[in-house]
Every structure is written in C-alpha cells, then in structure tokens.
C-alpha cells in the first residue's frame, strides 16, 4: 500500500517537474510559455521587492464596454442600493475626447496605487496605508469614516459606504461608515491570481489590461512598460502610480 502511494507521489512529482521545465523553456529571449511564479507561502509577509502594477492599453479598451466594472462589482460585492450618486465605486469607465482632433478614448479608472499616496498622508488614524508590495488599502478596523482620503485622492478613487451591508464576499469584508477603494483584488493576488477586472478583460478577449510585478524584469508588464510608451494619469503630481496607460 505504502509502496503504491510512493509510486503515485513520485510519478506526480515527476510530472510536476517536467511541466515546470517545459513551461520554463524560453520561447524567445525573455518570453516564457508559463511564468515560473515565485509563489509566496501563506505565512510569508509581502515583500518590498515586488511592486504590483496594472497596464491598460486604451487602444484595446472599447467605448461602452464595462466588463471590468461588472467583474469588480461581482467579485467585491458592490451592489446597487438605488442611490447611484453615493454608491461605492471602485472602478469606472471614463470617456475622453480631444476637442481639437476629435479623438476619443475610453479608459477604466480605479485606485492608481501610488507610490506616494496622498490618501495615506492625510489619514488621521493610519487606516489608509500602503502595503510593502505597493497595494494601497484601507484597514477598516482603524477607519473612522472621516473621508479625508476621499478629498485628498486626485483620482476620485475612494468611496464611503453609507448603508449597512450584508452577504459580503467572505474574502472582501465591507461595512457601513468606512472608506474603501480598489484593492487590486488583494485577496486574489495573495493566492497568485489576477485581479477580477483583468481576468474579465482577458476572458472576453479584449486583452486591454495586464497585471504584474513592475519590479520583475521578466514579467510581461515590466517588458511592455520598458518597450512601449505608457503614461500615468496626473504624472505632474509625482505620485508615481502603479497603474499606467498606453495610448492616452
């Protein structure tokens, strides 16, 4: 019995190793079939070496498409309470038009996960904070709902919850009286998954959003950012957002 189990395990181990080797084969310099993920163990704290970022290709983002917005609402349990002006909004589509040329752009805007976040600077309790890996979050255990962060954010990325909430996603606790914003789906990122918006965009075949580690030279996002021109919204504020836009 034990010999059988050993055999099964060893075969499985062999398969895993060969899959990893195959996946790791370079297709072209720096491009791998599967990224060999340096997965973080659950007991390991987040590392300062990682800087999570998003790259949004506005040329591929269709006007009127809100797949990312819907995916965000489903994942994070954002429901329509019948008060659209005050409902929490973690991601929104913004339509831009250059009045001189008539060129239009449609871009999703969410928390830009700044390196120097103004929301963290103004927070009187320390609830608004930046995780070591660059994700800007609200610790609802400490948030007093003063909304300074909403005022400070140049991207209008923070909301406050006005109503009691029930039936939350167990991974995404949300409640009345706390400020909140895009978390880059931190609960998914910690499981080595992509944020819900990115997953939905890719699934629908738009491929307008890429998520990854900006500090890892082998990641797709770092290579794209190095190769193509990308911009940060309100770069003049020198906040160094982790969300970048291509084709703006």
């Amino acid at each position, binding site marked *: 019995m034990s010999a059988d189990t050993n055999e099964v395990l060893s075969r499985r181990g062999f398969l895993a190793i060969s899959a990893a080797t195959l996946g790791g084969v370079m297709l072209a310099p720096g491009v791998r079939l599967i990224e060999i993920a340096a997965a973080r163990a659950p*007991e390991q704290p987040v590392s300062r070496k990682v800087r999570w970022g998003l790259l949004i290709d506005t040329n591929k983002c269709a006007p009127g498409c809100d797949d990312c917005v819907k995916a965000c609402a489903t994942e994070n349990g954002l429901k329509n309470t019948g008060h659209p002006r005050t409902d929490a909004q973690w991601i929104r589509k913004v339509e831009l038009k250059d009045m001189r040329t008539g060129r239009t752009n449609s871009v999703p805007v969410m928390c830009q996960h700044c390196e120097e976040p103004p929301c963290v600077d103004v927070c009187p309790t320390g609830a608004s904070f930046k995780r070591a890996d660059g994700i800007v979050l609200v610790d609802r255990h400490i948030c007093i709902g003063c909304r300074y962060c909403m005022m400070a954010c140049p991207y209008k990325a923070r909301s406050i919850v006005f109503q009691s909430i029930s039936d939350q996603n167990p991974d995404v*606790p949300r409640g009345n009286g706390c400020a909140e914003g895009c978390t880059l789906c931190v609960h998914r990122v910690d499981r080595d998954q992509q944020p819900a918006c990115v997953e939905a965009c890719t699934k629908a075949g738009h491929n307008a959003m890429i998520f990854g580690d900006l500090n890892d030279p082998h990641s797709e996002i770092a290579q794209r950012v190095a190769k193509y021109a990308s911009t940060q919204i309100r770069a003049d504020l020198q906040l160094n957002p982790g969300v970048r836009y291509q084709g703006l």
Partner: protein
Amino acid sequence: MKHNGIGASAGRIARAICLLALLLPVLAFASDRVPKPVIDIARPGKCVEDTATMRREHPDMLKHQRDLTMHEGIRTQKHSLKECISCHASTKTGSVLGNNGFCQSCHEYASVKIDCFNCHASKPKRIAGATP
C-alpha cells in the same frame, strides 16, 4: 429607644438586601431564568486550540491575525476568522449569527457586542456544486 428601633430595622433591611444580592445569581442558575448559550458545532472535532484557551483568548487571536493579514498579507488559516466561520456556521441557517448561532448566542449570554459582522460575512463562501 425609638432611635435604636429605626437603626435595627435599617440594619435588617440592609442584611436582607445583601442576602438577596448574594442569592440572585444562584437563583438565576437554579431556575434556568437565563438561557444558556447554544453551542452547536456543525463539524465537531478539534479546534485550533483547547476549549479553555479558545474561550478566553479568541478575541486576541483574531485581533493579532487580522493585523498580520491586513498589513503583511499573511493568510495562514489557523487563527483566521474565515476559518472559524466555515467550521462553526450552523447547519440550519449557514451562519454564526442568529438566535442559536455559535457566535451570537454566546456573546448575548456574556453581553459582549460583536463588531466583526458589521463588515465580515457571517456565512462561509458558497462553493459551486457544494451542498449547503
């Protein structure tokens, strides 16, 4: 004489009050006036710590774990609220709240307000295809 009489009766009343105060909790227990918390564990087995430790120290464990998870991204399961809920949710209501809910019944008995569920889900995540 008259003065003494008042003093004696006041003393008697005070003694009676003291006796009643001492007896009240005993009476309450004896007559089952205070409903005992319902400890109905859907998945009986061993908790992460022994019962005495859990009863006394679960708030500290949760508080410690919440800071590690929130600020350092450490998502170990041992002291996580999500794991507590997935084990202790009632089989009938699927929740740790409600009259016979594991958390609520005890907290009501001890008269300690729980804030957790203003934000946290009181039910475990429904897995597609799983029977509730």
